[in-house]
């Protein structure tokens, strides 16, 4: 008899809780009817119960029939872009981590084993995070059904005029371009988040890399971590939208505009204070290189270094504005 309850539990636990009680009672009745049919008024044996339950079939399948529809974390519609995205991201993480490992090994060849252990650890850790975030992103998209209209005809009544035009090669977004963009953001993310001490001017002595003078201030950097994450997520989101929509549409141009606005805002927060830059950059440069602190070359570099902060903000702003305008231009161009 216990077997019957186990069977009913196995079916109902896969069903919405509002229906469980009702279906459980109906199934119990059915199983008793089937048993009676099989053995009449004789005593119920475990063998008979097993036989009846085998006839009813696997509880997983029965529950699926009760549900009617299949449930997905990521449905077949989204699975292809999901798996593509995952491959790209994991691949670029691997490349980025290998580069970091190579640079560290060149700087400190003696600690290669230690670096290698750290490398494996980071690859596993970061890959797991990336996997989780991509999956969460797609699962959320699945849950809210936010499949771009281009991929989804099912809603509303379909009309032939809804058919998308055959893509014009001119306003089509090259896959390679967006993939490159995503890879770039991930490389950027890995370097900046985990190895920002390697992001700087490499100093060579006798053809050997002795150190890298970082551009950024590692201490101040911690305070900006949320902003950096925001930048990376915004960037990847932008490239992903391009990848999924596949061509310049008005909607995409608007998304592009909004995301570029967010990016610009985040960059403004990041660079508003000068604290993000390495305050000791010039001293370190003078110390490790042959450039004398009193020489003319030194003052030229110092000047350039200080000006560059302003130019970076300007370059970012112009770049983002141009990108936005091009997006609208391509979307509205006939």
């Amino acid at each position, binding site marked *: 008899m216990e077997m019957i309850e186990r069977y009913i539990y196995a079916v109902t636990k896969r069903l919405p809780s509002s229906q469980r009680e009702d279906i459980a*009672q*109906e199934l119990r009745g*059915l199983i008793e009817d089937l048993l009676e049919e099989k053995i009449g008024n004789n005593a119920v044996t475990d063998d008979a119960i097993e036989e009846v339950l085998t006839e009813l079939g696997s509880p997983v399948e029965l529950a699926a*029939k009760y549900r009617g529809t299949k449930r997905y974390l990521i449905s077949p519609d989204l699975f292809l872009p999901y798996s593509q995205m995952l491959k790209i991201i994991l691949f670029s993480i691997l490349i980025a981590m290998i580069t970091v490992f190579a640079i560290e090994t060149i700087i400190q060849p003696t600690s290669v084993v230690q670096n290698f252990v750290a490398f494996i650890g980071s690859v596993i850790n970061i890959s797991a995070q990336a996997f989780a975030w991509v999956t969460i992103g797609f699962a959320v998209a699945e849950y809210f059904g936010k499949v771009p209209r281009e991929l989804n005809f099912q809603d509303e009544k379909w009309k032939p005029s809804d058919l998308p035009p055959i893509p014009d090669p001119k306003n089509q977004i090259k896959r390679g371009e967006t993939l490159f963009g995503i890879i770039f953001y991930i490389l950027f993310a890995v370097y900046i988040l985990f190895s920002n001490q390697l992001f700087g001017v490499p100093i060579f002595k006798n053809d050997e890399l002795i150190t890298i003078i970082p551009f950024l201030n590692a201490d101040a950097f911690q305070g900006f971590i949320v902003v950096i994450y925001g930048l990376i997520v915004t960037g990847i989101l932008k490239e992903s939208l391009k990848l999924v929509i596949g061509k310049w549409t008005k909607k995409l141009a608007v998304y592009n505009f909004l995301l570029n606005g967010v990016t610009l805002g985040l960059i403004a927060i990041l660079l508003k204070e000068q604290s993000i830059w390495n305050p000791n950059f010039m001293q370190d440069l003078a110390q490790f290189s042959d450039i004398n602190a009193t020489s003319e070359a030194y003052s030229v570099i110092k000047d350039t270094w200080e000006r560059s902060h302003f130019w970076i903000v300007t370059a970012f702003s112009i770049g983002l504005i141009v990108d936005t305008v091009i997006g609208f231009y391509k979307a509205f161009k006939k």
Partner: protein
Amino acid sequence: MSDVNKLVEKLLQELRRGTITIGVLSQLEEPQYGYSLVTLLQEKGVEVEPGTLYPLLRRLEKQGLLESKWDTNESRPRKYYLLSTIGKEVYKLFCIEWKKIFQNMEVLMEGENENGDD
């Protein structure tokens, strides 16, 4: 040959899936519970597995074609299903459509036989 049988079996399964609904509706002028419906259909030559019928009954009820009521007077409680007003109407129209399809198919198949005889 087994390939042919397999294909026939598969096509038949698809065909039965569609007809089972009309079969169920046809028997529910009088209230029936799941298992009594299985035996009733079986007596009339229509085989249906309880594992298919029970979920189908619930789905038809959700669609508003059937009404249900628990009978707790008997030794074991049973859920009885019965055609609703809409269900009766749907069944009537469904029958007309079914006969049309049946006639059309017959015309098509007879046409084939004539060709075969030539």
